[in-house]
């Protein structure tokens, strides 16, 4: 079965009250959801909390998934909502302070080979919206339309963000290649 079809089938079983399907979804989708939060410069503990909060919310609103529709855009739309709520609660100032505290561990212009960079370091120079698009497109493996659905934007806007992000990443990795 196609992976998306499999997710849809699990979601339908989950809506019918099948706990095994819920567990399978949690096991299968949590790693990529965890990465989704971790890439936004939150600590591992915060990413854990956000993951847990997201699943609780997904469980609460699982009836809003409509069978036949792709699962990932629905899931990420809710995960984004949780993340925005988290930002609002923690306050932008503290988020900035936290990212500054972490700066010595992930210097942006480090002259290291691309392969040694962590995901956070690699995506660090990108604005949040571009980082999110790159993550959903390239790491979660969603299509342009699915990303547009998840981020409530148009396909054109997703394409533009991805294009700009790739330009910045190419430039950055090119510089690193030259330096190393």
């Amino acid at each position, binding site marked *: 079965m196609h992976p998306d079809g499999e997710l849809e089938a699990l979601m339908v079983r989950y809506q019918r009250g099948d706990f095994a399907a819920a567990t399978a979804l*949690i096991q299968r989708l949590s790693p990529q959801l965890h990465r989704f939060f971790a890439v936004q410069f939150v600590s591992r503990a915060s990413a854990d909390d956000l*993951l847990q909060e997201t*699943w609780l919310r997904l469980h609460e609103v699982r009836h809003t998934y409509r069978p036949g529709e792709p699962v990932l855009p629905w899931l990420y739309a809710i995960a984004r909502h949780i993340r925005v709520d988290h930002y609002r609660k923690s306050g932008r100032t503290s988020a900035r302070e936290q990212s500054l505290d972490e700066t010595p561990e992930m210097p942006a212009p480090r002259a290291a080979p691309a392969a040694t960079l962590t*995901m956070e370091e690699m995506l660090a120079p990108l604005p949040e919206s571009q980082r999110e698009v790159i993550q959903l497109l390239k790491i979660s493996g969603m299509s342009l339309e699915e990303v*547009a659905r998840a981020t409530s934007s148009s396909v054109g806007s997703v394409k533009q963000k991805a294009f700009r992000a790739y330009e910045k990443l190419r430039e950055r990795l090119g510089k690193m290649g030259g330096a190393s």
Partner: protein
Amino acid sequence: MRDGELDDILKKTAQAQPDPDPALLDRIAASIQPNMRPVRPLPSARILNLGIYCASLAIAIAIAAKLGFFGVRAMSGPQILILVVLPILLGWGAAEWIAEMIPGSRPHPAPGTFLAVACAALAALFAILFRDRVTEPFVSQGVACLKAGLLTAIPAGLAGWTILRRGFAVNPTNAGLAAGSMAGLAGILMLELHCPNFQTWHVLVWHTAVVPVSAAIAALTARLAGRRTSGRA
């Protein structure tokens, strides 16, 4: 560096990320287990749209019938066009609202864009179709129409909300904006059926104003409600 090489680097870097602790995943599964009852998925967007559309149309017509169909009786041939455009905008508004209430809906214009397009289209139509440039009494009649339009928008919005109450707005402000725009369009429809004042500035300013005012009130209400909900969570 080519796009393919960049894709590979990104994928490899992502794979190197540590996975969440398996104990955490077990805890998450255990936390939802006690509440594993079956749920009924939301109906299709078409059914929801039909429900909201019919409810708001019925409310606008019922209120106009109660107040009297003076407006539609006084309309000349081309002015009837407004009664064709308004139901189309109403359907679009309902679709916008539904998309905001179902996470991961198909890409659609932002509610702010819809509001701007609807207001611009109505203002242009009013300016073309209504040529009476007299503006007396501008404020008193205008405020009465704005009030009547908003009082129609309230039940239309509540009826729509009843239909969509099981939805989940990932962006409450946008959902409120879409809801208020749709409800405001029901208010204008009622005014066009009822109000016999065809002075250009009256319809252009006071009738059109029902949509942005209703949208602003609904967006503000939804924002405050969203904050309260997330604060409680």
